[in-house]
């Protein structure tokens, strides 16, 4: 929260790379190029990238791709990995069927 993040600062233009079509988020099939482009469209945080593209919203909730996405984003932004805030963690830790979540045993 102490980090002022000016979204107007110059991070350079988006230049296509040879491996832009590489899949990064397997669950939602998001490519490296889509992530890089999203940064240049203003998505400077992991949370914004996730909401904009859906990477990290699939079944594994970012377990596989979070570090990979982070590496791509920090390179586009030109910042250290520790400067990029991580996304929020939420219930359920593993996907749960509705009928199981609905069955709250022994609730008072």
């Amino acid at each position, binding site marked *: *929260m*102490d*980090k*002022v*993040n*000016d*979204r*107007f600062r110059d991070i350079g233009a988006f230049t296509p790379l040879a491996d832009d079509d590489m899949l990064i988020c397997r669950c939602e099939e998001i490519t490296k190029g889509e992530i890089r482009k999203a940064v240049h*469209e*203003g*998505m*400077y*945080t992991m*949370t*914004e990238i996730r*909401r*904009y593209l*859906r990477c990290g*919203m*699939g*079944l594994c*909730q970012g377990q596989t791709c979070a570090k990979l996405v982070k590496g791509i984003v920090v390179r586009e932004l030109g910042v250290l990995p520790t400067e990029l*805030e991580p996304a*929020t963690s*939420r*219930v*359920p830790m593993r*996907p*749960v*069927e*509705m*009928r199981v*979540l*609905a069955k*709250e045993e022994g609730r008072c």
Partner: protein
Amino acid sequence: MQNTAQVIIIGGGIIGCATAYYLAKKAISVIVLEGSDHIGNGGSSRNGGGVRQSGRDPRELPMVTWGIKNLWPYLTEELGVDVEYTQKGNLRLGKTPNHLNILQRLTDRSAACGLDVKMIDGDEVRQINPYLSKEVIGASWCPTDGHANPLTATLGFYKKARELGVRFITGEPVIELKKVKGKLRKIITSHYTYEGEQVLVAAGYESRAITAAVGIDIPMQAVKMECLVTEAEPYMFEQMLGTAEADFYGHQSKHGSFVFGGSTGLETYNKDNGKQISTSLGASCTCRGIIGYFPALSDAKIVRAWAGYIDECADKIPVISQVEEVPGLYVACGFTGHGFGIAPGAAYNIAEIISEGTPTVDMRAFRYDRFQAKI
């Protein structure tokens, strides 16, 4: 770094971003200050995605209908981002005669204002949506309602506004508003001082503390609500759904996942730890609500549940208004949990008030000074 602009907007949610966009289209310089680290981190990214007219306070109808007619259908193309606007109607469901009474009242109230909404029986409901339980005995049906993707819509407005030159700064919580020689000009954060000719406070519940600095109070309370989302499911239906007693509301997104919200009844009393933390009860309660109407979704897997605050205004509709007694101040907040659908319309009109002085839609119902004692 230039810290001055014609308009300073406090709040980077959909209202702040969309207003910035509509102002930028008129070549007005704008700076948007967002207190958290992310654009759209409040209700804008946490809601159930409803774009509806039915079930609203009649005072909101002219603006939301205008937005649905003139703005929503064109947003995807205009912003260059798929906002997934789907206009396939809204079913508000009932299982008991009491539910139907509630729905009838809502329907009559809106129909009286000219909205195309009517009551239908259980069979007609299942013709529209065959997945609904046999226990549903009726619903209100509004064919011009729909839903959209709040995440991409909010970030879409942000992206386009930024392209047009709006300067967004996150991590800049506002500490104080300051008048200079009788006019509101300065916005003080813990890092800098910003200056503008006009200032729009669109910071949800936090607006209240911010406007207090210039003696303006908007009667709101923060109420924590919860939602959840499933994994992608095969396509089932396109309507927006709700129930008479708010057991759940939601829709199936373009992605295939179902986004639902619900209520435990304890929302007004929920505490937090400084973050928008979920309760241990919300998700299970919403699931029971859903299964009660959608047995077909019993095996759908929930992948995530979240929480967010709504800024509940005293009379349950927003304040969107110029604050004449503080020259330079404008306010747009208090959307009370139904701000998403109305946001483009609200933003468009407050942008007009700021830039030209007169809005397209009559905004007098949303004035900041409307709150009176009951006697």
